[in-house]
């Protein structure tokens, strides 16, 4: 059962458990079997969001008598389950009580404030991922509106807050912008930024602010809040070479049909710089992920975010 091949097979189906759920029943085992650590272990039968049920360990062990936890919401989290006799460290999905998490998040002194930043070249899928994250993890995550001086466009999905150049500059002077950047372009004069107050309001509500950034915005955020306050994801398009990645981006930008050919050309030029930036400023990223499948990608980000919490 706990041989390396069986563990390998189990890992393949582990993602199924990566959902929040509700406790159906719960018990604390005083003497877990071999090869689990010899300390009490709390195990719950959990009904997941997709309606399936799983048995999972709770990340925290609760002493006997906690019958009240039945019906409570739990969130998945990856933990070290045990170490096999061969020395293989086996990680398993465990669950933690969402109420506890909420209780923590309302307490400003305890909440581990951080920003979830998604950086990548235009067309890589940053906005799609952030939208999905907000929908799937609506209890814990919220997108931060992007301040922009550009005109509204067909296809914008409510993520922008449109301001004039003058207003933007004034906010900058008053120190109300957490970060800002000017995107160089031959035919557009575009400023983007995030208001400090928007991020802090989301923290106050006990949620994690999700920001979509490019290299300058990410650097600005790291300066404003400190690098440790950012859980930073770099998104790459699929492809083994830079050329293949750019080709993929070109395909995606053309497919979404929001930009003209000239704009697409400029975005590809910027993308070359962004891809270089991933290598040059690797310290600004916690995880570099390839967007091959948007469903898997947003789940991965949500998982890392919960683990970080």
């Amino acid at each position, binding site marked *: 059962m706990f041989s390396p091949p069986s563990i390998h097979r189990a890992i393949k189906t582990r993602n199924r458990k990566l959902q929040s759920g509700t406790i159906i029943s*719960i018990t604390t085992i005083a*003497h877990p079997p071999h090869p689990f650590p010899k300390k009490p272990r709390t*195990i719950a039968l959990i009904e997941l969001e997709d309606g*399936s049920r799983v*048995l999972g*360990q709770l990340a925290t062990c609760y002493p006997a008598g906690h019958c009240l936890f039945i019906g409570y919401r739990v969130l998945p989290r990856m933990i070290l389950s045990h170490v096999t006799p061969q020395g293989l460290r086996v990680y398993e999905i465990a669950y933690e009580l969402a109420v506890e998490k909420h209780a923590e998040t309302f307490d400003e002194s305890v909440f581990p404030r951080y920003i979830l930043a998604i950086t990548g070249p235009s067309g890589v899928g940053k906005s799609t991922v952030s939208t999905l994250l907000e929908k799937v993890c609506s209890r814990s995550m919220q997108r931060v509106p992007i301040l922009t001086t550009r005109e509204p466009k067909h296809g914008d999905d409510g993520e922008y807050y449109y301001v004039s150049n003058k207003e933007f500059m004034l906010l900058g002077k008053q120190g109300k912008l957490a970060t800002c950047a000017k995107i160089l372009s031959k035919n557009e004069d575009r400023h983007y930024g995030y208001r400090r107050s928007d991020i802090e309001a989301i923290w106050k509500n006990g949620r994690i602010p999700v920001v979509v950034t490019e290299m300058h915005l990410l650097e600005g955020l790291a300066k404003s809040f400190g690098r440790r306050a950012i859980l930073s994801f770099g998104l790459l398009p699929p492809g083994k070479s830079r050329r293949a990645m750019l080709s993929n981006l070109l395909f995606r930008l053309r497919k979404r049909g929001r930009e003209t050919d000239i704009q697409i050309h400029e975005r590809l030029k910027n993308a070359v710089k962004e891809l270089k930036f991933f290598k040059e400023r690797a310290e600004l990223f916690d995880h570099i992920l390839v967007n091959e499948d948007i469903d898997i990608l947003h789940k991965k980000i949500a998982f890392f975010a919960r683990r970080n919490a």
Partner: protein
Amino acid sequence: MQRDIFLIGSGQTRFGEWWDKSLRSLAEEAVNIALKNAPCTALDIDMVIVANMLGEVINNQAHLGALVSNFLPHTPPALRVEAACASGSIAIHTACALLESGRADTILIVGAEKMTDINAEIISQALMSAADSEQDQPCGLTFPGIFGLIAKRYMHEYGLTRKELNAVSFMHHHYSAKNPHAQFQNAISPEEVEKSPLIADPLHMLDCSPVSDGAAACILSTKKKSSYRIAASKLANDTVSITDRVSLTSFSATQKAAKNAYEEAGITIKNISCIEHHDCFSIAAIINLEDLGFAEKGKGIEWYTKPITSSLSSVTSINASGGLKACGHPVGATGVKQLIEIGKQLESTNTRYGLAHNFGGACATCCVHILENISAPSIT
């Protein structure tokens, strides 16, 4: 039943922790007693069925059919069956099918298990092989853990209290004190149950059936007759993993097997005077009585907390042997022991019908047998 099948002989060892006895010697002891009190000779046995779950894991002994067949001078055809804790009753069910089909006239059924040769940690892991290895085991769950989850849910749904649960083991020990074959022949107080070490919240050590050594053998025949006829033998199954169950607080395999058994015997629960049911954990005892039809949902505990009187049935004894908890639970032997015990109780009370209920895992396999004492008056 398509043919009349009679229980013509039976024997069992005392259940317990027998360091000086092996799996083979336990089985041999039970077989010799059964043959001694049966109206047949060893040569009349034309088939042997052995029930055992963990021979390979604990005793490094597989091939148990042939091993037991060698106890008889003519080494009759033999096979071994395994269905976790339901192995014993499955062996009886298999024997009934073979007798009904005419493939055999007289069958020796032996349930044997030798569990105390290894430490508790390994036995716990071995027993867990009766659960789903991919869904239940990876999180570190044990069988007490599974029934801990069931107990917690039951308490949540029906308001059962820890204090009420104490009554189950208290009662089983009360009965086992009078059973010479029981592993524990001592009474305990309800408070002792709750004070014993915690195993899997809310279940304590005295809520759990023990690890035991023991064997039980019986002889069923269509050729030789006795006062005890198998009136029904029914098998039902459910999902192995509790994650695939709709309800944690009732076992559908018990409900199906019991319903079919009552139909096959042509009786209702009102005709049954004694029950031996599968109380592997105290919470299971409560759920069993509800699923067998002897109590409404949420009221099974009343059989243990109030005097045995019910408008639903004429039952006068429940787990008079002490059940699995107090009589002991050598896994493969339990189902066979239950049938033998029902025979003894029908004889001592001179009543007509008794029921043996045996399940494996978290009731993923369930077998219900109804034994009829044809010389006793019918209850109308």
